[in-house]
């Protein structure tokens, strides 16, 4: 029996090719993402572990920054001396590191990574463990000298002796490059500039007695954990954060992880789409192979194979396919990871491809996905195969998958559809965002199941309509191709389902993306009252002197800075909410039209006051005039009175629950040292917009990273940020379409084989090759358009429901990207034509006599 299975597998390997490709793609993406992230983890884990001191002392961290505040947490440098005096300590050194400086060359061009990765300024500590060693020149001595890393120097064409301007929080200063440092190991992608320690303290932190950390080396034979406890006991366990080298490395990897995680999830998203679409392809292939082998299966049954044996035989074939596909997919995944590593290297990271980590999880996950997908996909066809009656061996005519009644499907589809519709309606109606999102997920899954299950039922009505003009346009060939598509609704439905899933996902996401863009647009239109907005290119904060330069620009009137601050509020209902608050300078109401439910900007920004979203306040039992305790960075807390409540669509609410804001003075009092992230600028009376713009651009010339935008430009900036999401959506759509095309090719190719005799007959009675090709092409187009129509319908419904959920987060505008919808519809015709190329040419090349005699 196993032999029969193996032979059958080998005999059909050509027909399994497309399914195999789908498995290969799924596994490749899963394996690629695992290998890639493991490689990065190990590379950087090693890097950070090798550079971390035995024990590191850092300022205590109480709040995470989801938006950069621009503050640099410091501790007294004198701690180093205190720690050095402890027993078991070999040495203690001061660390200075400022993660967000900007370096420009003499011609005011930025000397920073093009990827938006930060430039880090640090102290050059001859005794410390570093990621770099001096390649040429000498170490920095005194305030006017600096060492730059070689990758950045190469990219920006900086040589020893060049003068650079460093824009740091305390102010800009000029340095001469005296040395170029080479990376000893990998490079996390940031640019590095080194100053000597006193200069770094003075120039980067603005305080000669401050440091960002203390590195402690253990005396010989002292364990790091032991040393950490000792240092912590001496300095006070809660006063600072203490980490051993291993802990520090882990924390650094995590900090770097955000960006890398995104890559990982994107890859897994691709894998998910490949799996989802691939399942349909495999189901269809196996269904068709089984339909074609009905007679053979009947024979096995007549010869005494029981149902279980037949089922097992089909599943074994599926598993063989899974093993083969997963093996190739693993190789493909390694290739994908290697490619990604090259891309990372191209944008400035240094990872050796030889460092690629392929842990045991990679093959395990790869084979689990490969085998899982094929097994799940082949299970139903296998059951159907097992149900083949032994009489099928004797039956004169081969009933290749002719339509059994679709009643069960209708019922199951209706139930799933009704449940899905209810869930979607529920999500559109319910208010807590968490529950709505859960309902949305359930609704999407259920409607997807319903569409897949009931798809074959829709084949007849939809294709009748889609192909209505075929007979008139293409004559008999048009009629035949429409009939062929209608011939086996199950098969047509399943083939189209692959395309449907991909298109539905992409359309749903693009509706969501377009709605977010439109919502931001409207919000900016409604709330932005200033003439210009000054911002960093990637929304990082900028030093005070930029704000000063803007204020000094001729013609600048009111300038309102905005600054982000991580806070945690303790609310009357006992809940502690960690969020990001915004601090505004006086005059907020002049530059923003905020919809106040209670109070106004003056009341909100007054000392000791804050404003929050009215609904958030209601949900947590906060009343106007009541006080809430607000915890700032560094652990200082303040009781602030609620001075104002904002209505819907308060500014900048996205990702910052509560919509908290207060005066800049309040922030300065409790958490000083932040940097402005946005400046809203109004023209002084009598100054024209163009005039002010030119003046601002002149004033900001020394700061090329900071840009002036008017309303339209600001919207553009926001739109560009969201566009990244859309590019991803289109890439996903592309992958889904590739696999779906494989599916259509597959179905058509198998149909052509199945209809060999019929095609021979058509050719014998005079159908030309050209017309035959057209017949197959039209059938393909009909299937593709059918899938696209279902996908568009489903995707639009999902998109609209997603927007309803987003509306709870303030994205109240629904926008449907009709251009995308039209492009997808037209694209599906192209997909159909492309998919038909191979099967059509194969059919047209058949020998007529042999085809007619084909059994």
């Amino acid at each position, binding site marked *: *029996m196993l032999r*029969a299975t193996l032979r059958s597998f080998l005999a059909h390997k050509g027909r399994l090719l497309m399914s195999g490709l789908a498995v290969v793609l799924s596994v490749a993406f899963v394996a690629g993402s695992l290998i890639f992230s493991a490689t990065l983890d190990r590379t950087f884990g090693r890097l950070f572990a090798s550079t971390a001191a035995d024990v590191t002392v850092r300022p205590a961290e109480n709040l995470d920054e989801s938006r950069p505040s621009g503050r640099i947490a410091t501790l007294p440098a004198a701690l180093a001396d205190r720690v050095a005096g402890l027993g078991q300590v070999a040495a203690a050194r001061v660390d200075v590191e400022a993660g967000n400086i900007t370096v420009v060359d003499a011609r005011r061009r930025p000397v920073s990574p093009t990827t938006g990765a930060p430039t880090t300024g640090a102290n050059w500590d001859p005794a410390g463990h570093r990621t770099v060693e001096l390649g040429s020149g000498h170490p920095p001595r005194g305030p006017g000298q600096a060492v730059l890393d070689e990758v950045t120097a190469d990219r920006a064409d900086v040589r020893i002796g060049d003068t650079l301007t460093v824009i740091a929080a305390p102010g800009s200063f000029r340095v001469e490059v005296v040395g170029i440092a080479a990376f000893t190991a990998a490079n996390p992608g940031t640019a590095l500039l080194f100053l000597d320690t006193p200069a770094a303290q003075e120039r980067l932190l603005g305080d000669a007695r401050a440091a960002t950390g203390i590195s402690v080396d253990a005396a010989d034979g002292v364990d790091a954990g032991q040393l950490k406890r000792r240092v912590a006991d001496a300095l006070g366990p809660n006063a600072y954060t203490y980490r051993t080298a291993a802990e520090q490395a882990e924390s650094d990897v995590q900090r770097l992880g955000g960006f890398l995680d995104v890559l990982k999830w994107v890859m897994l998203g691709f894998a998910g789409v490949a799996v989802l679409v691939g399942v349909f392809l495999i189901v269809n292939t196996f269904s068709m192979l089984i339909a074609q082998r009905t007679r*053979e299966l009947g*024979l096995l*049954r007549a010869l005494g*194979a029981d149902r279980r044996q037949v089922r097992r035989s089909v599943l074994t074939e599926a598993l063989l396919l899974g093993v083969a596909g997963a093996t190739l997919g693993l190789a493909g995944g390694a290739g994908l990871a290697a490619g990604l590593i090259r891309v990372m290297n191209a944008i400035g990271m240094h990872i050796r491809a030889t460092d690629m980590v392929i842990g045991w999880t990679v093959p395990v996950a790869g084979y689990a996905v490969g085998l899982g997908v094929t097994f799940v996909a082949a299970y139903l066809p296998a059951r159907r195969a097992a149900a083949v009656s032994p*009489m099928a061996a*004797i039956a004169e005519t081969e009933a290749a998958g002719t339509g059994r009644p679709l009643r069960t499907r209708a019922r199951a589809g209706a139930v799933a559809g009704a449940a899905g519709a209810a869930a979607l309606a529920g999500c559109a109606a319910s208010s807590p965002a968490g529950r709505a999102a859960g309902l949305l997920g359930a609704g999407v899954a259920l409607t997807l199941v319903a569409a897949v299950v009931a798809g074959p039922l829709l084949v007849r009505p939809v294709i009748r309509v889609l192909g209505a003009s075929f007979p008139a346009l293409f004559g008999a060939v048009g009629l035949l191709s429409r009939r062929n598509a209608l011939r086996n609704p199950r098969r047509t439905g399943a083939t189209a389902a692959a395309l449907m899933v991909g298109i539905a996902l992409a359309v749903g996401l693009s509706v969501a993306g377009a709605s977010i863009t439109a919502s931001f647009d409207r919000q900016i239109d409604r709330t932005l009252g200033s003439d210009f907005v000054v911002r960093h290119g990637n929304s990082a904060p900028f030093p005070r002197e930029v704000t000063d330069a803007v204020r000094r620009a001729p013609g600048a009137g009111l300038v309102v800075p905005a600054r982000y601050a991580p806070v945690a509020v303790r609310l009357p209902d006992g809940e502690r909410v960690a969020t990001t608050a915004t601090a505004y300078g006086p005059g907020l109401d002049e530059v923003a039209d905020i919809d106040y439910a209670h109070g106004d900007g003056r009341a909100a920004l007054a000392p000791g006051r804050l404003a929050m979203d009215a609904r958030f306040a209601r949900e947590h039992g906060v009343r106007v005039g009541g006080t809430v305790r607000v915890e700032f960075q560094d652990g200082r807390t303040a009781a602030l009175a609620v001075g104002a409540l904002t209505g819907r669509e308060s500014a900048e609410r996205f990702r910052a629950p509560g919509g908290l804001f207060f005066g800049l003075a309040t922030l300065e009092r409790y958490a000083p040292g932040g940097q402005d992230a946005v400046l809203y600028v109004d023209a002084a009376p009598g100054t024209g917009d163009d005039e002010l713009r030119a003046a601002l651009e002149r004033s900001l010339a020394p700061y090329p990273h900071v840009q002036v935008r008017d309303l339209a430009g600001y919207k553009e900036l926001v739109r560009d940020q969201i566009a990244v999401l859309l590019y991803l959506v289109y890439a996903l759509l592309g992958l889904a379409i590739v696999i779906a095309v494989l599916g259509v090719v597959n179905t058509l190719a198998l149909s052509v084989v199945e209809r060999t005799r019929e095609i021979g007959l058509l050719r014998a009675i005079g159908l030309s090759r050209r017309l035959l090709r057209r017949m197959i092409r039209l059938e393909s187009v009909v299937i593709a358009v059918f899938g696209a129509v279902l996908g568009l319908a489903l995707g639009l419904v999902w998109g609209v429901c997603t927007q309803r959920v987003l509306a709870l987060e303030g994205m109240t505008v629904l926008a449907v990207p009709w251009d995308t919808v039209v492009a997808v519809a037209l694209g599906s015709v192209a997909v159909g034509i492309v998919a038909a190329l191979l099967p059509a040419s194969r059919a047209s090349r058949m020998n007529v006599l042999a085809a007619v005699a084909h059994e």
Partner: protein
Amino acid sequence: MPAPAAEHVPGPAPAGPFAARARGLTKAYGAGETTVLALDAVDVDIVRGRFTAVMGPSGSGKSTLMHCLAGLDTVSAGRVWLGETEITGLKDRELTRLRRDRVGFMFQSFNLVPTLNALENITLPLDIAGRRADPRWLDRVVGTLGLRDRLGHRPAQLSGGQQQRVACARALVSRPELIFADEPTGNLDSRAGREVLGFLRGAVDDLGQTVVMVTHDPGAAACSDAVLFLADGRIVDRLERPTARAVLDRMKRLDTGCGPSGECGGPAPGPERG
């Protein structure tokens, strides 16, 4: 495969003179007014160790009779025994096992698995059962059928006669109690047909097998020990030690719609099919 293979020792006949019996065997297709009776309360006994032919015009129910006796098809009413086992009412699983261990099949269109070579096709029923072929028996069967130098060939590389000989070997290899042959010569030229019939005859005479063959060829029927004639779902006649001429005679009477007693009935049926 576990136990059952060991419990049942394949081979000719335990007790009892009949390899298969049916009482009141009825098979109806469709329901209500459109009901068609393919078999109408048929009583039949297949004697062990003999070669029985079943003949009848198209639509007479001869194939249905065979399928019901072999447990391939379900019955509408009546009882069927294979040896001492009543097969009516058995579950699919038990029927499958019964077919596997106690029945052999030959089909008009050979029905070999195209991806397996001749030897693999022959041993397929044993492979399914998870048993090994008795090498001496296999050798004897292969030798008798003259397939020794064809064992490595795929079905596509064999002539029709050779393919049917492979199918015959496949039916014999597990030493079933009963071999059902459904128009085994239907797709063969007359020489290859005679050969195959000779092998079936030999299987009965030399190997002690029991064979039931459905055919419409009087010449083929003449090779049997006894012929059953079916018409309209009933056994209307039987003939012991037939000759081609005697069979043809009886068939003519059936074909013109005249029963054995001489009275004439419905219209003449169409051309014979499998």
